[in-house]
């Protein structure tokens, strides 16, 4: 029995498809060759494509590469351990490949039907005129080394690794890490569990980690939204505002134009260029550094159990309202004589520190339940 492809282009059933696509080559009688302890079967083909999005539905690991010319190329390589060639062919089992079109997309279905012991790797070559690649793999990793357009990727489980992507990136993994070296546009990615790393994004970034893992964004030109159920969030440089929250772990923002950050357990460290800051740490310190020339807006920093330290440039004008509700001897330590600290008294309100620095400006509201407030000149 030979490896065969069960279905072909012949029964696409959609008139539009025929107009869009060159028909697939006839199913190949793929050779099965011995490679060490394994039998390996490969099929591959190509078809021309117009400037339309390409959607690939499959299962198994998939690699997407940039292809020259106007042809989409694909290659399915399957490997299995078997005693004889016949046994190997039986295990490899064949499969389905079909090209159709729907909703303005060209759809390539590659559904190898094979035993569970077969390792399937799929490689797709995509020409430059394809504006968007959409990959749906039931289970398996997705690798896109280099692609000029946008990508929309989804896997039931497995890693997603992207090199240089010219357009926007949307991705989802049922379980596994996501690594993006460069995206020319916006990035919107979710994994159920695993780390997410974005080195460079040319737009807004929205990342979510549903069951835990660390999130890191080195650079993004737009807003960054990051949610981790449990893990650290590190944002290097954001051209827009940062919105970050984690149930456990630190949040660190290198620079941003406004920050909203909440950590249930962990330190929040922020450098802010402009815009409002709304920072909250239930159990952990807050360290906020206001940069020289910062265009501040009204901000609020709240620490449950932990200290708040704000580093304020000498020339920055702002109004400070600090409130320390710590029992015992609450402390507000200030380098600014303009801040008047009212000592806490027996059964009276918590310690309050307030004043206008450099004539006053946007309001910086600081609130600590158990800790110390430091206002430091930088």
């Amino acid at each position, binding site marked *: 029995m030979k490896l065969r492809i069960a279905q072909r282009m012949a029964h696409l059933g959609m008139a539009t498809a025929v107009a869009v696509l060159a028909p697939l080559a006839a199913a190949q009688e793929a050779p099965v060759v011995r490679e060490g302890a394994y039998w390996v079967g490969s099929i591959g083909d190509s078809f021309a494509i117009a400037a339309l999005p390409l959607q690939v539905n499959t299962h198994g690991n998939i690699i997407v590469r940039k292809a020259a010319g106007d042809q989409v190329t694909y290659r399915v390589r399957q490997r299995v351990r078997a005693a004889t060639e016949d046994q190997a062919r039986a295990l490899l089992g064949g499969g389905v490949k079909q090209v159709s079109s729907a909703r303005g997309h060209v759809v390539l279905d590659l559904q190898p039907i094979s035993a569970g012991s077969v390792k399937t790797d799929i490689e797709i070559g995509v020409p430059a005129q394809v504006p968007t690649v959409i990959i749906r793999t039931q289970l398996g990793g997705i690798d896109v080394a280099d692609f000029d357009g946008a990508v929309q990727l989804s896997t039931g489980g497995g890693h997603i690794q992207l090199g240089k992507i010219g357009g926007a990136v949307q991705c989802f993994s049922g379980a596994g890490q996501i690594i993006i070296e460069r995206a020319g546009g916006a990035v919107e990615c979710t994994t159920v569990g695993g780390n997410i790393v974005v080195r460079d994004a040319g737009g807004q970034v929205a990342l979510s980690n549903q069951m835990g893992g660390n999130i890191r964004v080195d650079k993004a030109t737009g807003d960054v939204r990051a949610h981790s159920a449990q893990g650290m969030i590190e944002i290097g440089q954001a051209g827009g505002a940062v919105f970050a929250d984690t149930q456990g772990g630190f949040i660190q923002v290198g620079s941003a134009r406004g920050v909203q950050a909440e950590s249930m357990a962990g330190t929040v460290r922020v450098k802010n260029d402009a815009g409002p800051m709304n920072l909250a740490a239930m159990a952990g310190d807050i360290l906020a550094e206001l940069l020289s020339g910062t265009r501040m807006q009204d901000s609020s920093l709240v620490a449950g159990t932990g200290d708040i330290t704000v580093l304020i440039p000498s020339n920055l004008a702002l109004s400070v309202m600090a409130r320390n509700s710590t029992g015992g001897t609450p402390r507000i*330590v200030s380098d600014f004589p303009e801040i008047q600290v009212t000592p806490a008294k027996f059964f009276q309100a918590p310690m309050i520190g307030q004043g206008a620095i450099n004539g006053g400006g946007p309001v910086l509201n600081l609130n600590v339940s158990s800790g110390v407030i430091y206002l430091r000149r930088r």
Partner: protein
Amino acid sequence: MNSCETIRTQLGMLLYGELSFDEEEMVDAHLEGCAKCRAALERERELHKAFDQLEIEPPASVLWDARQSLQQRIAAEHARPGQFSKGSGWWDQFVDALMLRPAGGTGWLKLAGALALLTVGYMGARLAPDLGLGTVGMSVADPGAQRVRSVEPGANGAIQIVLDETRQRVVSGDLDDQNIRVLLLSAAKDPSDPGLRYETVGILNDRAQTADVRDTLIYALQHDENAGVRLKAMDGLRPFVQHPEVRKALAGVLLSDGNPGMRTQAIDLLTQGVGEGSGNAPGNTLDRDVIGTLQELMNRENNAYVRQRGERVLQLVNASRDTY
């Protein structure tokens, strides 16, 4: 009548001022009539004086170790089945509750104990005068906390005050510095701050070739409650996946970690190389323990990807899904 032997066991506590009033009276009464015990007391006093003259620089890790030990004791107490630590009267239970003994007290007594502690702490703090010890003016670079342990009026109007101080200190050195290493190994287990553990594990990852560091990473992998820290520890252990203790830890992750991202990476590491090299017999690349783990995984895994990976590996090594 108190025997000399009994009295001598209390001399140290007498000098520390730790005896109750009644005990002190009893010891004093005995000392008045016993020259040998008075001599023993003098010897004890000399010994204490000698100790006091010694200036000991405790290792920087001592606080960490103490905290670690305390955490372990607390965890052990929590794990103990609910029995009162002593006695059975309501007062004993109340005292247990006050002492925050986890097994102590019924619900209302625990609540009463917690409220009493809260009240005492709050009132004590409110009523305590500001001693003007400079704490308010402490800077970030020299923060600390201090508490008056005892006060003693002197003859000429001077007052001697004993302070307990907790003070921050900066220590620096490389990872080969034993002191630094001990501190890092302790910080990696600090239960209070996942961010600290994450950063510490990140530093330790560069030295995972040494057994003590590797053990700490394995501990983090298995026990850290934060998935981000566990993932970081797994990164550090990646080059050592052939070590039996690392494989055992990864097997544990595969079977019991609630995070599918952790399990996905664990199975990637445990089965790497299986089915890859064309010249190798695949069965030889996986040890029996891992096969057993994968078989157990088949019974409990609900993530389709991890399940599929496990299934495929078992088939590759000619192992059945259910038994080995």
